[in-house]
C-alpha cells in the first residue's frame, strides 16, 4: 500500500516536472517522502538533461509544411462532391432506388405494362372479328369505328399481347346481326386468355334521317370484354367482338358499348 502511494506521488511529481515545475517545489509538497523522492527525481532530471535534444527549427518547419500539404490533399479527397454536398444521402439512395425500379420496369415489368406485339399472318391461329348487335344502329347511315389496337390478356397473368388491326376502320352498319368482319389474323401464343381490350381512336356516325354527323361517345377510349377463351396451335380460334351503339336518350347522343352476349370465340 505504501509502495503504491509512493508510486503515485512519484508519478505526480514526474508529471509536474514535465510541465515545468521545479524539483524543489515537488519535494516541498511531499516532505514525508522527500528523502525517498529526491534521488529518484534527481536521476530523472539528470537523464533528461543528459539526453536533452532539440530538433532544428528548419527540420520542424519543413516537416510542418509536408504535414499541412498532406492534410490539405486529404481534406480535398475526403470532401464529398458538390453534388453530394447539396443532395442528402437519403435522396441519393432514393434516386438509386428509382433507377433500380426503372431498370426493373424495362427488364421485367415492361413486358407486362407494354404488351408483346404480334404481327399478322394469313396462316395464323387466331382471327379477330368485329360485329354489331343491332340496337340503334338503324339510326345511322354509316358508323365508322377506327380501332388503333387490340390487346389480349392472358388468364391468371398480367402478360398481354397486342396487335394492330390490318383493317383499322369498320362500318358497323355493315356488320349487323350475323355479319362480321375480320380485322386481323395472326399467330398468338397458345393458352387461355381472359380479357380483350379494343382501343378506339375515332368514331364517325352519320345519321340516316338527317345526314348529320353526330357525336358518338365511348365510356373510355377502349371497349373491354372479360371473357375466357382458349387459343391452341392446332386450330384457328376466331374471336368476334361485338360492338353496339345505343342512344343515351332523346338528346341525339349515342354511345358505343361492347356486347358481351354476342361476343365470343369459336374454333375451327
Amino acid at each position, binding site marked *: 500500500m505504501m509502495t503504491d502511494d509512493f*508510486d503515485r506521488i512519484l508519478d505526480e511529481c514526474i508529471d509536474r516536472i514535465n510541465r515545468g515545475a521545479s524539483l524543489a517545489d515537488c519535494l516541498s509538497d511531499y516532505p514525508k517522502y522527500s528523502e525517498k523522492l529526491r534521488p529518484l527525481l534527481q*536521476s530523472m532530471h539528470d*537523464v*533528461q538533461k543528459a539526453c536533452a535534444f532539440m530538433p532544428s527549427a528548419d527540420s520542424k518547419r519543413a516537416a510542418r509544411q509536408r504535414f499541412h500539404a498532406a492534410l490539405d490533399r486529404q*481534406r480535398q479527397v475526403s470532401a464529398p462532391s458538390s453534388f*453530394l454536398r447539396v443532395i442528402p444521402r437519403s435522396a441519393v439512395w432514393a434516386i438509386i432506388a428509382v433507377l433500380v425500379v426503372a431498370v426493373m420496369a424495362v427488364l421485367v415489368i415492361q413486358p407486362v405494362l407494354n404488351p408483346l406485339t404480334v404481327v399478322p399472318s394469313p396462316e395464323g391461329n387466331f382471327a379477330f372479328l368485329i360485329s354489331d348487335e343491332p340496337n340503334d344502329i338503324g339510326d345511322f347511315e354509316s358508323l365508322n369505328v377506327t380501332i388503333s389496337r387490340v390487346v389480349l390478356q392472358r388468364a391468371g397473368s398480367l402478360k398481354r399481347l397486342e396487335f394492330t388491326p390490318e383493317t383499322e376502320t369498320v362500318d358497323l352498319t355493315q356488320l349487323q346481326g350475323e355479319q362480321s368482319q375480320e380485322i386481323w389474323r395472326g399467330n398468338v401464343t397458345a393458352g387461355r386468355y381472359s380479357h380483350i381490350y379494343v382501343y378506339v381512336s375515332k368514331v364517325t356516325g352519320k345519321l340516316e334521317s338527317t345526314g348529320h354527323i353526330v357525336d358518338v361517345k365511348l365510356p373510355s377510349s377502349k371497349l373491354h370484354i372479360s371473357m375466357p377463351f382458349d387459343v391452341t396451335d392446332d386450330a384457328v380460334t376466331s374471336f368476334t367482338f361485338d360492338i353496339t351503339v345505343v342512344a343515351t336518350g332523346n338528346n341525339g347522343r349515342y354511345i358505343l358499348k361492347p356486347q358481351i352476349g354476342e361476343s365470343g370465340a369459336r374454333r375451327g
Partner: protein
Amino acid sequence: MNAGGRREISGMHEYETQLAGLYEEYYDKIARYVFIHIGNREEAEDIAGEVFLKALKSLKSYREQGVPMQGWLFRIAHNLTVDYLRKADRRRTVPIDSVVLVGNDNPIGTAEIHIDLERVTEAMKRLTTEQREVINLRFFGGLTSREVGGVLGKGDGAVREMQRAAIEKLRGILRIET
C-alpha cells in the same frame, strides 16, 4: 448525405484538427523519443515528421483504438523506429557530435554532459524493454502514465510500478559508474 455521413466527415475533420494541434507540442517530443532509440539527429527528425504523415493517413483506424491521440502518435513512432532499426541493422550508438544540448554554453560543461549522455544510453540498455519504453515515453515523450499504459497495453498502476523500478535501477547503474 445523411446525418451519419455528415457526422463521419465532421468527426474526421475534428481528428485532423486535433492532430494538427498536437504537431507543435509533440513534434519535438517525438523527435526526442526517436533520437533516444536511434541516436541520430537527422533521422530522428525525419521519423518525427513521418509519424504525423502516417497518423494523418491512418486517422480512420485511430478512432477504433480508444487511445489518446498523443499516445497513438508514440505508438506509431515506436513502430517506425523499430522498422528503421530493423532495416538499417544499425548498432544503437549515439553520434555524440550531432547532439544539440539545451541551455549549456560552457564547452567544459558540454563535454561533461556528452559523457553523461553516453552513460545514460548505456544504462538504459540495461533496463527491460518495457522499463526502457516507460522511461522514454515519460521522460522524453512527456506522456502521462495512463497514456503510456495506452501505448503499451498496460494499466497505469503497472506503468507507475515499472517507472519507479526503472528509475531506481537507472540510479543504481549511474551512481555505481560515477
